[in-house]
């Protein structure tokens, strides 16, 4: 499989990135903090007050290293990529098919089938340790019903309806998956803009990381991350990246957030409630999350469709590639990622 390269996360305010020969140099207060050969990197993600020299940006573009800028809270601001990669014919196929109702419904059903199946597996794994939790078991049964309802082709708006129902069911029992530090980590409902509690702050941050990886993977295979099938086009929104994220979220993001809390890798002190009620993480907590996210990417699993061993970090790339294959007519459907 393709090699999983590192992502460099720059979190310290006032950092300055520049090029030196074949390396990327990170300076803080005129002192070199880090120097990395470019060929070990696939992306650089800058959070908050981080600046980069123009020669560095050009160097990264030439070496296909994406440089992205986020606000301190993880809101995406800008991404710098080199020339558009891939095939214009593929992008045209993507646009045509995004306007084709039957085709769109077929792909969207794959995304949502996988998402619900994966959510259910997250619940089941937890319920094994909590025998007798009838609420958890009930939610898993509800998700199974939704899955069976999606076993035959249905219209796109009904798929979106099922997706909403399933998400409500899933998040309604999400709090039960927290098994330690219950007083600090309580989940009522999903809040995003802004996140209103610690768990939502965590979820939002990890989803941002995942969305970035998915968008890069889509661009890498020549697809336009903005033109989705399940997500309607909206300027500024990476619809296709969000589509692919649906199936990857439970496995890569939600389970990571749960283990960070349940294994006490992060603590209540790492979170701060601002005057508006919005919750922010501190730098140390963000660093832990990033480290664990990177670790998770190195884990090896068996891809259910390819039946090959792959590392988790390549899942966005693999799914992007499989989607491209379907759009080109190489496959007879989109084999969404369903983990067991």
């Amino acid at each position, binding site marked *: 499989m393709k090699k999983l390269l590192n992502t460099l996360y720059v979190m310290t305010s006032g950092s300055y990135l520049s090029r030196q020969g074949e390396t990327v140099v990170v300076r803080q207060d005129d002192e070199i903090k880090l120097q990395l050969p470019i060929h070990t990197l696939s992306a650089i993600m800058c959070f908050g007050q981080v600046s980069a020299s123009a020669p560095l940006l050009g160097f990264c573009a030439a070496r296909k290293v994406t440089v992205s800028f986020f606000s301190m809270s993880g809101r995406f601001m800008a991404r710098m990529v080199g020339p558009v990669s891939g095939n214009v014919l593929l992008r045209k196929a993507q646009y045509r098919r995004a306007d084709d109702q039957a085709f769109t419904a077929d792909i969207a059903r794959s995304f949502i089938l996988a998402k619900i199946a994966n959510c259910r597996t997250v619940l089941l794994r937890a319920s094994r340790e909590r025998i007798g939790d009838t609420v958890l078991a009930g939610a898993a049964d509800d998700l199974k019903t939704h899955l069976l309802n999606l076993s035959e082709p249905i219209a796109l708006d009904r798929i979106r309806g099922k997706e909403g129902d399933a998400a409500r069911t899933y998040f309604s029992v999400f709090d039960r998956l927290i098994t330690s530090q219950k007083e600090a980590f309580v989940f009522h409902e999903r809040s995003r803009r802004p996140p209103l509690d610690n768990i939502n702050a965590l979820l939002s941050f990890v989803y941002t990381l995942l969305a970035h990886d998915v968008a890069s993977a889509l661009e890498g295979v020549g697809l336009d991350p903005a033109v989705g099938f399940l997500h309607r086009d909206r300027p500024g929104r990476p619809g296709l990246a969000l589509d692919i994220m649906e199936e990857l979220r439970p496995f890569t993001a939600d389970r990571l957030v749960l283990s960070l809390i349940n294994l006490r890798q992060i603590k209540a002190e790492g979170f701060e409630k601002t005057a508006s009620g919005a919750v922010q993480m501190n730098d140390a907590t963000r660093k832990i999350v990033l480290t664990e996210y990177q670790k998770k990417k190195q884990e090896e699993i068996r891809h259910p469709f390819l039946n090959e061993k792959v590392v988790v970090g390549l899942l966005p790339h693999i799914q992007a590639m499989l989607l491209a294959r379907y759009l080109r007519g*190489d496959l007879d459907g989109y084999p969404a990622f369903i983990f067991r």
Partner: protein
Amino acid sequence: MFTEDDLLPISALQHLAFCERQAALIHLEGEWQENKLTVEGHGLHDKVHEDDAEVRNGVRLVRGLRVRSLEFGLVGAIDMLELTPVDSAEAGGVALPGLRGRFLPYIVEYKRGRPKLDHCDEIQLCAQALCLEEMLGASIAESAFFYGTPRRRHAVTLDMDLRAETGRLAVRLREIIDSGQTPPPEYAPRCQNCSLIDLCLPQAPRQEGSVSRYLKRTINEVTSEETA
């Protein structure tokens, strides 16, 4: 005759001779994945293109020449052209831009590794010669490879068969590019040496209905897992 806008890269012919799908993935879909072999190849070529013209034992060496053929619709570059001075046009000598006298042109292409069993490399050399012949109004009977292991020159006769095969591939390449369709994979032993194997996925399930079967089967397996 093709126009300059229509020209396709000579390298595509080699890829095509190796595998039609590989050629389409690279030249139609714009996919390219570096592997160890291709990266080492770059290093070698950078070196070849580094120096300017030099004269060695009376033979002039010109490196990194860009060539094209409007007849075959190809464009590419020649690693090194050796120009041996000859007395007359009768001896096969051609006049060259910027040089006095007449010369016998001889193409040398640098390759890492050893001579291959298939003829992908010969196709490339022949295509370069066809381009150069058109540009110079010359006729080139022979060219050569310089292989890294062993460090040895290997001459190739540009006979009618090789020329015909090269021309046929140029036509086929154009058909594929014009169609916009990447041919389906056929898994073969050569796939293991292909730098695009992870993009091509020659062994991925691809028969009609395979994805819907995968989805049905996997969902069945997942839903049959019972709640505790």
